[in-house]
């Protein structure tokens, strides 16, 4: 939103004059001070002036007495019939969600904030996968901006464990791993940029539904929001995201719940089977992910999508994780051309030498 540039000089003055620390609200104290209102809240407004009978009566009276309403109602009925008969997208299954409309609506949304959870488990026993002593169950926040790109943050017990930032204007991706003060950065090619936009976003999920076919799950209510569910089983478009050696998606299925009123995905659940690849530190893993739409069309600070390397961070290299990779897959690494054979052999010899030296 633009300000009148001529008067921007007033901003710091007004800020100094008016600014205060946000006032905190203490609901407990308020309830003690307002016992009648607190009782009303506890009892659920059973004795309040509004009841179903009077509401229906008022609505009926309003409809009957208003000329505008009567004429408008006639016009709306005529329009609705025309739309249902001539809709280019076909009629919705049960009067709720039309995916083509949702696709359009999602494409129009400027920003989104999504919260959720990512859990990596071992297929053999279903246990949560542990990496270097850390359980890989992340609370996730994702920021999407049509203008600036995507950022995903993963937290464990409230501590930031990773942040992946894809800056759209710069075509730059930065991955930071705060517990180890490490980073990885690379420039995204045209095709990766397109995949990031078209697959790894709410828009992408709707595209996936439309491209790969889906099963309707019917209506439900999630946290008081009326939704309609869709299930997809074909994860082929997801497989294009990254090379198999880096992230090997073998199977995928998911459910998308779309708010009937909002015409936006409000909850997305996915299950992905991942083969041994770099991103899973050469383990076979299952990923269960739940994403819930938190906010949309909110102002997101450009700084959220900054790909500047934080101070004190050093570049992440394969040698940083080599000692965590199971021995049996190291040969695979060499085979894939990700690590030179000499490098691994040298590391093992060096370790043996150090061990021998310490024993003697």
């Amino acid at each position, binding site marked *: *939103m*633009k*300000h*009148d540039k*001529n*008067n921007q*000089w*007033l*901003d710091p*003055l*007004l*800020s100094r*004059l*008016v*600014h*205060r620390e*946000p*006032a*905190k*609200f203490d*609901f407990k104290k*308020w*309830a003690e*001070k*307002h016992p*009648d*209102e*607190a009782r*009303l*809240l*506890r*009892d*659920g*407004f059973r004795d*309040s*002036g*509004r009841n179903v009978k009077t509401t229906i009566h008022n609505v009926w009276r309003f409809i009957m007495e208003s000329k505008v309403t009567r004429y408008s109602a006639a016009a709306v009925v005529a329009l609705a019939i025309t739309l249902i008969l001539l809709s280019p997208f076909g009629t919705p299954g049960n009067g709720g969600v039309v995916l083509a409309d949702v696709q359009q609506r999602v494409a129009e949304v400027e920003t989104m904030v999504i*919260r959720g959870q990512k859990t990596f488990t071992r297929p053999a026993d279903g246990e949560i996968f542990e990496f270097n002593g850390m359980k890989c169950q992340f609370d996730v926040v994702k920021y999407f901006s049509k203008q600036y790109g995507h950022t995903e943050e993963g937290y464990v017990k409230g501590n930031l464990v990773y942040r992946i930032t894809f800056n759209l204007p710069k075509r730059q991706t930065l991955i930071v791993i705060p517990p180890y003060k490490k980073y990885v950065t690379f420039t995204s090619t045209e095709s990766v940029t397109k995949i990031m936009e078209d697959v790894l976003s709410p828009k992408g999920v709707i595209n996936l539904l439309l491209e790969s076919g889906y099963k309707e799950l019917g209506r439900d209510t999630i*946290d*008081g*929001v009326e939704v309609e569910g869709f299930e997809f089983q074909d994860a082929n478009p997801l497989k294009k995201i990254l090379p198999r050696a880096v992230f090997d998606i073998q199977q995928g299925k998911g459910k998308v719940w779309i708010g009937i009123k909002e015409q936006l995905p409000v909850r997305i659940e996915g299950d992905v089977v991942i083969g041994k690849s770099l991103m899973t530190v050469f383990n076979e893993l299952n990923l269960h992910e739940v994403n*819930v739409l*938190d906010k949309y*069309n*909110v*102002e997101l600070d450009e700084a959220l999508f900054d790909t500047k390397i934080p101070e004190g961070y050093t570049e992440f290299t394969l040698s940083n994780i080599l000692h965590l990779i199971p021995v049996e897959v190291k040969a695979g690494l060499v085979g894939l051309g990700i690590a030179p054979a000499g490098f691994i052999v040298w590391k093992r010899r060096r370790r043996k030498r150090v061990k021998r030296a310490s024993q003697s």
Partner: protein
Amino acid sequence: MTDFEDHILVRRALQADPESFGELCSRYYPSLVAVADSVLLDHHLAEDAAQEALAEACRQLARLKKPERFGSWVAAICRNVAKDMLRELRRQKEPIPDRPAQQCDCPDDDRKAILEQAVKQLPQPLREVIFLRFYNEMSYEQMAGVLGATEQTIDGRLRRAKKRLAVYLAGKGFRR
């Protein structure tokens, strides 16, 4: 709880879930204090007005026709509560005469006094956007939720308010 939209929290509050109403209160309390402060120009009184407005909102909650507009509805209640308080205060005591404006060159206190006076002379709707914007550094979207206006309207009001302030300050010899 914090993730739910207003209409869901209103619905839950109406179904005997006090915590939902508490969440709505926490969400809008800072904005309400800013709205009330823009009327009363007194922070402590503004907090009282905001709390009273929430009590009134609680009593009237079942009559709220559009729960998704809870923010602008409770802000309107707060504005009225603050105006009632101001009327009551004026009845109780003579208003303090405004400080005469000074030509200045200017020590900080004088500049502050002139700026206060400039904000005070603004019409209430313009003063309100100034308070909302600079009180808690609210975004246009949050302000839109509280004022029940579009972001363009708010931008227009903010620009008009700042233009008036600039003209007033220039007239008082206020230097940038």
